[in-house]
């Protein structure tokens, strides 16, 4: 089967620092991929490149077999390539219900109507509430985002992404900053994502990586060191050396 998301020879440098070197990955539909690597390996940069928030110096990005390298981030999202942020990037003074409804209205292209109240769009509100409820945010959906505990803000990151109806979901450290005891909700949410959605997630906690991912990509110094099943990765001496042994010794 042809991959849903593919990169070919992606290159990116910040000045003299090469943060992406000849990155070629291919994600088959419905697979749960983990992207791991030490701090500064270029994982977030790769997501920025794939979603169009950064322009590559060279290389191609293909979604469903189409070259999307020249498209802007908005257009890529509309085609189903969606991300979340390592550092919360939310709408602090909107409540979750408004934020997710906003996303749905934009998706359905009703966001340009200004003569009808949002409350008239009952289907959009129902869908928004449904998404929030599935992520256990139902009870707090009318509280301002900035007042929510951090863990719930992390869930809202995912809720916003889901409201765009993604084909490929790129999760940048979804549990970053959430204490381990409290991260279970987040990973339940990720496990129960629809199998139609292809997921690539960055995560530093190896136990979670091995539990959730069916395949793992290891990045070091802007390049891909290795790609394989969890068993292959954990058995590889190079991975042990640069990643498991090094950064998390």
């Amino acid at each position: 089967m042809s991959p849903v998301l593919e990169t070919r020879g992606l290159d990116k440098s910040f000045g003299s620092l090469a943060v992406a070197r000849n990155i070629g990955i291919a994600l088959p539909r419905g697979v749960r991929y983990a992207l791991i690597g030490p701090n500064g390996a270029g994982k977030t940069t790769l997501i920025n490149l794939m979603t169009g928030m950064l322009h590559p110096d060279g290389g191609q990005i293909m979604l469903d077999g189409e070259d999307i390298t020249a498209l802007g981030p908005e257009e890529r999202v509309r085609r189903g390539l969606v991300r979340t942020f390592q550092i919360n990037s939310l709408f602090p003074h909107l409540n979750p219900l408004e934020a997710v409804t906003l996303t749905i209205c934009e998706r359905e292209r009703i966001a340009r109507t200004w003569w009808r109240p949002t409350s008239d769009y009952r289907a959009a509100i129902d869908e928004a509430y449904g998404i929030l409820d599935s992520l256990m945010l139902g009870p707090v959906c009318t509280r301002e985002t900035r007042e929510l505990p951090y863990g719930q803000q992390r869930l809202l990151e995912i809720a916003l992404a889901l409201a765009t109806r993604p084909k490929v979901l790129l999760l940048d450290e979804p549990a970053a900053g959430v204490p381990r005891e409290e991260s279970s909700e987040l990973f339940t949410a990720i496990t129960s994502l629809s199998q139609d959605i292809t997921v690539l997630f960055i995560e530093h906690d190896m136990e979670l990586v091995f539990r959730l991912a069916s395949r793992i990509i290891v990045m070091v110094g802007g390049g891909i060191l290795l790609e394989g099943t969890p068993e292959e990765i954990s058995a590889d001496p190079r991975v042990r050396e640069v990643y498991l042994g090094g950064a998390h010794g």
Partner: protein
Amino acid sequence: MTPTDPATAAPAPTAPHPHMAAQVRWRTVEYVFWLATLLPFVVAPDYLALASQIAITALFALSLDLILGYAGIVSLGHAAFFGFGAYAAGLVSKWGWGEPLSGLLIAGLAAGLLGYLMSFVIARFRHLALIMITLGFGLLLLEAANSASGLTGGADGLQGVKMWPVLGLFKFDLYGFTAYWYALIVLFVFFLMARRLINSPFGLSLRGIRENPVRMRAIGAESGPHIRKIYTIAAFMAGVAGAVLTQTTETVSLGVLDFQRSADILVILILGGAGRLYGGLIGAIIYMIARDWFSGVNPQYWYFPIGVLLIAVVLFLPNGMLGGIAQLIDTVRGRRWFGWLTSPPPWLRSGSKP
């Protein structure tokens, strides 16, 4: 505000539909406010001219609120559209068409068209760059009006503006009676429009742009078209406000394009509270009355107390007077009754923008 346990938290409606519907519903204070705008007819008939100035300023402030308070687009040159509308209305009348309502529409369309053209530039920039661009644009237009004295009358002002009676019935009188209700009705009509707009999906997207333009892109939303649209609408409204000034005073001076006017309206909006719909209205009332009063007491230094007021408000009431009052009431009652009033302008806070 400290995070509270969900079980003991404020009993705001958490059911999604009632919550969304509640935002649209008219509140008692709003009825009271609009009824109170009729008071000048009864209690201060000598001040109707001032009252109509306030209504015009309130409309102008409301238009700035749409772009600044809701979409987060800073402007230091909003008088450009006010002045453009004022001159358009004046010229239409001078050239022989003194019918007020169509004059208003023409002036609004002229300013709206200017705003539409300008919006393509506006949508590309943010923050400091926007301040400089709008400032420069305002100054440019002022100088253009000044040098095109054949058309605008230059520093002498536009002469020969003569308005026909409103609807062919109500002449603009010396006491400002017609002027006030005319300005008030125009304000109310545009207020209703603005109120509808901010509660729509479009209004929600504007708030999204204000809150986090980066995230807007990441949810597949293009901000550009939204910004161009609201900027055009706001320019239209500002033009109408300028036109009402022309029509009710039957003269246009260069002052309509002055930088001072752009700065004043910003002050008014911050005083009242940006992003709150009523902020500009309350701000206009307080500012205009204070100015009238202070300039009577001390004509030379009347900006001094205004300056003190502005600093005090920004320091102690970062959400403006309206935000402050809303917070006070909520605190006293221990409930978030006025949560709808307290969506604060993030550009007044630090660290909320990337």
